[in-house]
């Protein structure tokens, strides 16, 4: 029976700025089981990266974890002292960031950096660490590993740097890898290589993966469970097939329909969510998504819904739920966005363009 290796309970991380308190993570609870691949999705400002940084106690100033617990197996990360945190990071849980160039030390050889990742935690003696470097590089499919370990990061291409980061992350055999937008900065064909690698690591080594991304296609490719975040809270969660087939939260629903697919043109217009994510300092009352929600009812602006079960292993934070929305309402969202009379007005005031044809 798979155990839970990570359990977050009502996590609250806030930033104290001159404008006010930014509630970046506002009561998030989630878990990751052994060997699972979980996606945390949402757009900028939803709190997914902050949640990940909180897990590793890497929240930058002026931010702080102000409430809740993060259990890694049976240890509470939020109460660890500096020494324990240092030991925890990179050891049991490793993080891969979006831009490998800034996460790798440009003046140290790649092989050395991987060795350091191992010796820093004293899990391996320097001699053992040295011996493990090449197999690690090979495991992440870096060709000519013996030669490559002597190279510096700038001598690696973007894709290879990302693999080197993954190798560093794997060095101490962590139980969980948190990958924050690991492929966004990479070319599409390289993305495919990294995705395949992550899937292999998960199936061969049993390493759990928490993938943080806004790319729904990536989620469909790698993960078995999806957690959707908005405005610092979880708004929906469930098995990947269920979420994609019948999302219940309007945000999830809209997100899935706002993404064009490369394999077919199903509809001629994308669903677009009007407006912008809320200001995390002054959030709207009731449901945080309601100002942008096309399906809201009166209750939505007064009470914030709780995460309720809406299907087997699926929960959503919504009073309405997409299954209660009639088809016609959904189709309304495909309406034209620009107003006709403004168009007419503009055409009237613009000069004619025929003159260009005759070269004047």
């Amino acid at each position, binding site marked *: 029976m798979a155990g839970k290796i990570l359990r977050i309970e009502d996590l609250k991380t806030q930033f104290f700025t001159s404008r006010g308190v930014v509630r970046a993570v506002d009561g998030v609870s989630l878990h990751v089981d052994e060997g699972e691949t979980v996606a945390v999705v949402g*757009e*900028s400002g939803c709190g997914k990266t902050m949640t990940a940084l909180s897990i590793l106690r890497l929240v930058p100033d002026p931010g702080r974890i102000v409430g809740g617990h993060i259990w890694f197996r049976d240890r509470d990360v939020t109460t660890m002292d500096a020494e324990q945190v240092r030991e925890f990071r990179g050891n049991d849980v490793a993080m891969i960031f979006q831009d490998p160039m800034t996460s790798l030390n440009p003046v140290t050889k790649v092989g050395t950096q991987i060795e350091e990742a191992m010796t820093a935690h004293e899990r391996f003696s320097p001699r053992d660490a040295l011996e493990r470097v090449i197999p690690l590089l090979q495991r992440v499919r870096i060709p000519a590993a013996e030669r490559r370990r002597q190279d510096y990061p700038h001598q690696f*291409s*973007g*894709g*290879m740097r990302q693999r080197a980061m993954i190798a560093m992350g794997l060095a101490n055999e962590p139980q969980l890898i948190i990958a924050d937008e690991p492929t966004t900065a990479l*070319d*599409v*064909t*390289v*993305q*495919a*290589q990294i*995705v*395949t690698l992550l899937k292999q690591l998960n199936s061969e080594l049993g390493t759990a993966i928490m993938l943080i991304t*806004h*790319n*729904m*296609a*990536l*989620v*469909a*490719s790698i993960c078995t469970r999806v957690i959707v975040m908005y405005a610092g809270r979880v708004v929906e969660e469930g098995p*990947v*097939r269920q979420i*994609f087939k019948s999302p219940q939260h309007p945000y999830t629903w*809209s*997100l*899935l329909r*706002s*993404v*064009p*697919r*490369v*394999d077919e*043109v199903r509809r001629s*217009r*994308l*669903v*677009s*969510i*009007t407006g*912008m994510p809320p200001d995390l300092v002054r959030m709207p009352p009731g449901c945080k998504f309601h100002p942008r929600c096309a399906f809201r009812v009166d209750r939505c602006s007064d009470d914030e819904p709780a995460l309720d079960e809406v299907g087997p292993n699926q929960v959503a934070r919504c009073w309405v739920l997409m299954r209660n929305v009639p088809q016609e309402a959904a189709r309304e969202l495909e309406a*034209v*966005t*620009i*107003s006709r009379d*403004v*168009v007419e*007005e*503009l*055409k009237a*005031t*613009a*000069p004619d*363009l*025929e003159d*260009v*044809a005759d*070269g004047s």
Partner: protein
Amino acid sequence: MAVEAPAPGASAQPALDPVILRVENVYKHFPVGGIATEVVRAVDGVSLEVRRGETLGLVGESGCGKSTLARLITQLQPATAGQVIFNGEDLTRVSGGRMRRIRRQMQMIFQDPFASLDPRMTVGEIVGEPIDNFGIARGRARQQRIQELLRLVGLNPNFTNRYPHEFSGGQRQRIGIARALAPNPTFIVCDEAVSALDVSIQAQIINLLQDLQREFNLTYLFIAHDLAVVRHLSDRVAVMYLGKVVEVADRNDIYAAPQHPYTRALLSSIPVPDPEVEAGREPILLQGEIPSPVNPPSGCRFHTRCPIAQVPGVCSETEPELEPHGHASQIAACHFAGREIA
């Protein structure tokens, strides 16, 4: 969506050429270092056509030269060789003054909403710049036009005195679109216009671009690396690799029956937001990395990574030409176009 020739007996205007832009054998080489013998062959012999009223998508990965090509077309960079013929005029040969006038017809939307707006200018000044340059309106009418443009793209027209940093990324991109529309152009080059935006904002801007195209009869050259977005918006798609065009086809043909192995690999690398489909799919993994544009491989540039290349053989010796393969107007540059990848 080609424009039909006017019926006989209609106005005496000559029929507009259905091709609004013709890029002919264009090259752009950047010298490397001081006394250069080496060059970066960013664009290395590209020929393309854009038809009036259509959206031509241009895709490729890093180093393929698509952004450089955009700048060659809009003359923001001079071409090393070749011709860019817009509405019958060769832009590589016109004077600076004439080019400036032509720009009224040919506008560009840039990728970075944070960098493409001058931080020291107000929104009104930014959108007003092309209006002033082309003398389109003055005084009261000018102010009105600016406000109409803002309203058109979904922004509050009262914000003409605000500065770019007060707006979000998506809003800034709208400002950029308003600016591009201000002189009432016919042709717009969208250089990664939605790549820097969040997913749901992307959808807003994509919808906006579609609506604007329909209302104002615009022609788009849509450059992007996201093939799903390109498929959604484009009528035809051109694929570039290492400075050359490797395939051009109608949007459905290119996705249903790609002829060039690179196009195939590219398409197969893109995940689909559908777990059922993904579970049954294996991407074609290309070996190696994209070669340097300073020293492109001999013969077919793709041969070093191509799963079906004949090496040594025709693929490493002779550069293939763009020739008709596959469906109707599909062209691909491959000696073994259409062959299955084992």
